[in-house]
């Protein structure tokens, strides 16, 4: 199929065709998914959920957001009900919501229990760090808001863009080894292992996660960093105090890696890079270009 998708016209036709197909047949992913009976006052919990609501053009339904919802800028005008994992039941109730649309892992459980007791429908949107995961989120959010058709259009569009972004690195032979560094504290590197958004993004952009052998974010030993041999360090540009190149490469083990000798570090906005939402196709492209430059093909 790859020879087909190289032609833009053909790809457009395929997208169009699949769109028609999708209209006729509801996507299996959203079967059995809840729908809000009243969608007039929704609280969005989780950056990517808020982004999807805006991308669907349904932002007029939002009455509040959580503190991880920092895009688009307009979202800052909404009241902030706090960090998604530390919600306060009365705070959420104070905005009089008719429904809560929350990313997987929102809580705590007690707050959710109280909100359910208040008969406020609570829909949890699962998260997987993959293309399918993003499409599933879009469809579930759309379905919950009664905007299935719009969501299907958005999902198909995103699917096409994500597939295209992934394919841009398909012909690259030499894969870059990428070390995602969450933070540098006292010279210690906190790096992303498997089952992380960073791991998912590196793979989608045609890279290889230099970390092998642990999941989640863990502190890495100096020797493990040397054996990981990263070609590139990837970091978030706006999370916590900025880590300068000198501080990063001041760590002798980091300095000794290919990334260290070339002083190659990529910094990308955290919500954009790790959100797995409507902007992820662009983020994949941006990361791929940063990794491979001109080798990235359209």
């Amino acid at each position, binding site marked *: 199929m790859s020879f087909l998708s190289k032609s833009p016209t053909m790809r457009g036709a395929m997208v169009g065709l699949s769109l028609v197909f999708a209209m006729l047949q509801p996507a299996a992913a959203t079967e059995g998914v809840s729908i809000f009976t009243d969608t007039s006052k929704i609280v969005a919990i989780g950056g990517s959920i808020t982004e999807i609501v805006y991308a669907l053009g349904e932002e007029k339904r939002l009455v509040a957001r959580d503190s991880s919802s920092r895009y688009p800028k307009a979202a800052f005008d909404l009241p902030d009900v*706090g960090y998604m994992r*530390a*919600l306060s039941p*009365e*705070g959420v109730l*104070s905005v009089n919501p008719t429904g809560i649309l929350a990313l997987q*892992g929102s809580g705590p*459980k007690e707050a959710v229990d109280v909100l359910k007791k208040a008969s406020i429908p609570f829909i949890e949107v699962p998260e997987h760090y993959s293309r399918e995961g993003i499409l599933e989120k879009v469809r579930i959010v759309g379905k919950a808001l009664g905007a299935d058709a719009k969501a299907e259009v958005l999902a198909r569009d995103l699917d096409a863009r994500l597939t295209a972004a992934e394919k841009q690195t398909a012909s690259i032979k030499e894969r870059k080894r990428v070390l995602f560094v969450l933070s540098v504290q006292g010279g210690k590197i906190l790096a992303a292992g498997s089952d992380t958004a960073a791991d998912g993004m590196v793979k989608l952009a045609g890279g290889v996660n230099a970390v092998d052998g642990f999941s989640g*974010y863990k502190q890495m030993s100096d020797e493990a960093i040397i054996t990981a041999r990263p070609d590139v360090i990837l970091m978030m540009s706006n999370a916590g105090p900025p880590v300068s190149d000198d501080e990063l490469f001041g760590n002798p083990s980091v300095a000794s890696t290919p990334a260290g000798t070339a002083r190659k570090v990529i910094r990308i906005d955290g919500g954009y890079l790790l959100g797995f939402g409507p902007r992820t196709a662009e983020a994949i492209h941006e990361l791929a270009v940063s990794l491979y430059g001109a080798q990235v093909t359209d």
Partner: protein
Amino acid sequence: MVDQSIAGPVKVMANASEGDRSGRARIVILLLCLGLAAAVLLSLTSGASDASAVNVLRDWLLGAVPGDAALSARDNLIVYDIRLPRIILGMLVGAALAVSGAVMQGLFRNPLADPGLIGVSAGSSLGAVAVIVLGTTVLAPVTALFGTLALPLAAFFGGLATTLVLYQVATRRGQTSVATMLLAGIALAALAMALTGILIFMADDRQLRDLTFWQLGSLGGATWQKIGSVGPIIILALAAMPFLARGLNALALGEATAGHLGIPVQRLKYTAIIGVSAAVGASVAVSGGIGFVGIVVPHLLRLLIGPDNRYLLPASALLGASLLLLADAVARTIVAPAELPIGIVTAVAGAPFFLWILLRKRGVIDL
């Protein structure tokens, strides 16, 4: 280290002005009662939402009131299911932490003693973190059996287990050495923290965030169910503590003297330790780490009413309850509709205040 604020009862008893002092203590306690009532009212009527406690109270008194039924139901939920359990839990935890601090300081005859020192808090934290991190794997049967109560129960038994080990270590031939207990408490706390560290290392990102918030402390998870599970433990422990007052006063003269005065010293120590670990274990279990209440409240009160434990313990309970309610009111309104962890509020308010107390006392005691 000579601490006159605790060695004080000697002088107080010998002093002709004892009547003045107890009279003053009674007035202070009365004022503290009024203060607590005011704190309860303030907590009941303030919050992120505009729910009016007055309307709800009227609803309760008059039964159903005609009018906006939907809003009334919402107000009822906010006041009855969110604010009220939180207030009760806040009072219980505040009183438990403050009284435990006062008892520990009396027992160890050391103004720096607090429940954290004998490892109760560290043991409780270990239990709670174990449930957060292992709740879906090794401890899955436990969480399946106890549900949301698994965490408070694990924290409670973690604290209690630490205390019992400690007591075994410090007791030889029926005699408990307070000094050994203090040192062993430091060792056990270090061990519990190391084990917690292993769990933190094993934790995934979500669990890490959960346990960070847990360690910062919050009364946010207050439910009637939680009050039902830890309330009786705290109330029982608080009810036992006034009986310690005379013993603790005598203990200030030294163990031998207290024994000669007819105080059953061994039983006193045992009751105090079990009571404190039960009260603190239960408090940490439901509210996470809330610092400074246990150390600031008794110190402040000793300045006001002197060191007599007969007044100090009830006054500590009242002031601890009031202060925690006020801290919680700040925590849940200052960044509304979001909420600050209460441990942040008590530390930010408590630490500078504690320094101020120390500076004021410098002329009195040589720390």
